[in-house]
């Protein structure tokens, strides 16, 4: 009885097509944004921000990127990690060349590098489909991983092969580098993620989102409508890789503060893919759910044994985490293949008719 649309009439199509047509939804998102911008910095510890909130935001953005490609357009990609890496190294080179330019602008611009690389590795999609295309993205992943190690120019010929993030400021407050506080970094990350999520939701609700979904659902019929398949797929690769690139740049500049050559390997790609699967393919909010779930579960698992007074070897916890994660993926696929996003929708539906059962 709280979550009712009764009395909320839309008199224009514009209102009908809004992101959050129901008043309660609008209230909900306002509360969430309020909590995110004000609540977390005030209430959460620096440690929590550093180890949970920032990572979840970064991964959510990467998951949105992958979701656009795999969930909305139906093109399975196993190269997410590599595209993130391109963004990270791109940002590093940009920061080296243009030290005067604001770092936030550079982070966003680094997405262009990964967009370009994404398009190149998406070119085979003209001829190849499905699993086979996934292998093309694997080629991208392994080739780029190799480049991150073997092309010393990328990490400015640093002997260790790693990149150290320089200090950069925004309004005279350090946002990157060793002096930047977790709260500052969190604000920047949050702002970027909120902005880019809004842009993604605009794309997805309009003409472009529909053409992507049409290509996913039945590409022959999409051609019939007049959709140019090749252009649509390449656009999807470009936008998706852009998002992954920005996420990668944020990961290095606003979270880790440094990066090793092995950070953006195949396991990273699988990690993000799991987030997308569990969160829900084809759902933006699902990307957030997936990131929270996959990042949060190991943290919760590590925290549980001490609560019971058991001290468990941390390696054992890691092994158990893998097992539980694997089992949970299977469990989700059996119970709700459309992921947490669908569960959320079902929950909202039940809330609409509450206290009646249907």
């Amino acid at each position, binding site marked *: 009885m709280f979550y009712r649309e009764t009395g909320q009439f839309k008199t224009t*199509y514009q209102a009908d*097509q809004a992101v959050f047509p129901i008043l309660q939804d609008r209230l909900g998102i306002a509360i969430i944004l309020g909590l995110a911008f004000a609540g977390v910095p005030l209430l959460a510890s620096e440690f929590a921000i550093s180890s949970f909130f920032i990572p979840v935001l970064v991964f959510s953005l990467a998951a949105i990127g992958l979701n656009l490609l795999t969930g909305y357009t139906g093109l399975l990609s196993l190269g997410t990690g590599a595209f993130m890496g391109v963004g990270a190294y791109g940002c590093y080179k940009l920061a080296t060349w243009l030290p005067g330019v604001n770092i936030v602008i550079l982070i966003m611009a680094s997405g262009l590098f990964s967009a370009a690389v994404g398009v190149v590795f998406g070119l085979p999609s003209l001829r190849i489909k499905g699993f086979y295309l996934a292998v093309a993205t694997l080629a991208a992943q392994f080739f780029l991983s190799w480049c991150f190690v073997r092309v010393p120019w990328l990490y400015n010929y640093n002997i260790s092969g790693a990149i150290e993030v320089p200090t950069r400021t925004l309004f005279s407050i350090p946002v990157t580098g060793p002096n930047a506080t977790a709260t500052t970094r969190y604000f920047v990350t949050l702002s970027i993620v909120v902005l880019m999520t809004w*842009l993604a939701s605009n794309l997805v609700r309009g*003409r*472009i989102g529909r*053409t992507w979904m049409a290509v996913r659902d039945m590409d022959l019929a999409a051609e*019939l409508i*007049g959709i140019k398949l090749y252009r649509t797929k390449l656009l999807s690769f470009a936008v998706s890789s852009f998002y992954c690139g920005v996420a990668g740049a944020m990961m290095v500049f606003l979270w880790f503060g440094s990066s090793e050559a092995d950070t953006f390997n195949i396991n990273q790609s699988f990690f993000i893919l799991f987030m997308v699967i569990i969160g829900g393919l084809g759902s933006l909010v699902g990307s957030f759910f997936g990131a929270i779930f996959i990042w949060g579960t190991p943290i919760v698992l590590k925290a549980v044994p001490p609560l019971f007074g058991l001290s468990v070897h941390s390696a054992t916890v890691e092994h158990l985490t893998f097992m539980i994660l694997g089992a949970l993926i299977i469990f989700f696929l059996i119970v709700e293949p459309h992921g947490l996003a669908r569960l959320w929708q079902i929950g909202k539906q039940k809330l609409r008719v509450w206290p009646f059962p249907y």
Partner: protein
Amino acid sequence: MRAPSGPNVAVGDVLLSVENVSLSFGGVKAVSDVSFDIRKGEIRAIIGPNGAGKTSMLNIINGFYQPQQGRITFNGQTRSKMRPHDAAHGGIARTFQNVALFRGMTVLDNIMTGRTLKMHKNFFWQLLRFGPALTEEVEHRLRVEEIIDFLKIQNIRRTPVAQLPYGLQKRLELGRALAMEPDLLLLDEPMAGMNLEEKEDMSRFILDANNHFGTTIALIEHDMGVVMDLSDRVVVLDHGIRIADGTPDEVKSNQAVIDAYLGVAH
């Protein structure tokens, strides 16, 4: 089924002309040296026993198959090679035997995809949405709502396609095709699998589309009653060859047609 009176639309010049078209797959000749035309504003039926090459013919007009021989002239332009999206740009829309809807989307979104060709605001406006892209979206939503009213599917606007019964899916597919505002609408067995009531509804929609929107229609259909009532002219195919071409009455009494349907060996 009561026969509506004859065509209300003035039938005009030749819109599409198929000349000596042949298509083979490996050793199988699907279509052999077929010629016929379709006039602007008419309802043209393509009939024939199973395997006669009717769907192949439609696929050729549409651009899915490239014939080995022959030409197709549409709207005055003769083409040799055509891809499906070129056909769409040229003003040809089509429905399928096995419903080809976008199952991951709602009814409304499916019909909105039909407007894709008419939507021009580029990527950056789409990113922003507020402003020109939204205005365009609303403008096309208006057109789509006209079609939804026309097909009386208002109450299932937001239903995901996978949950719809077969008859409504076919109706929706017609709606998506109409959303393209085509010059020529190709319907592949639009009545397949429908009961009498659904067929009457569908016939009414087809006729109204022809009258109201002025769309030229070519349809493949097995129900002879529908064919005789709806169409202005009929072309009959059998084993890939054209065996008759004329008004419904002429075709009905054509001996070769009767033989083909009864399976008389020839």
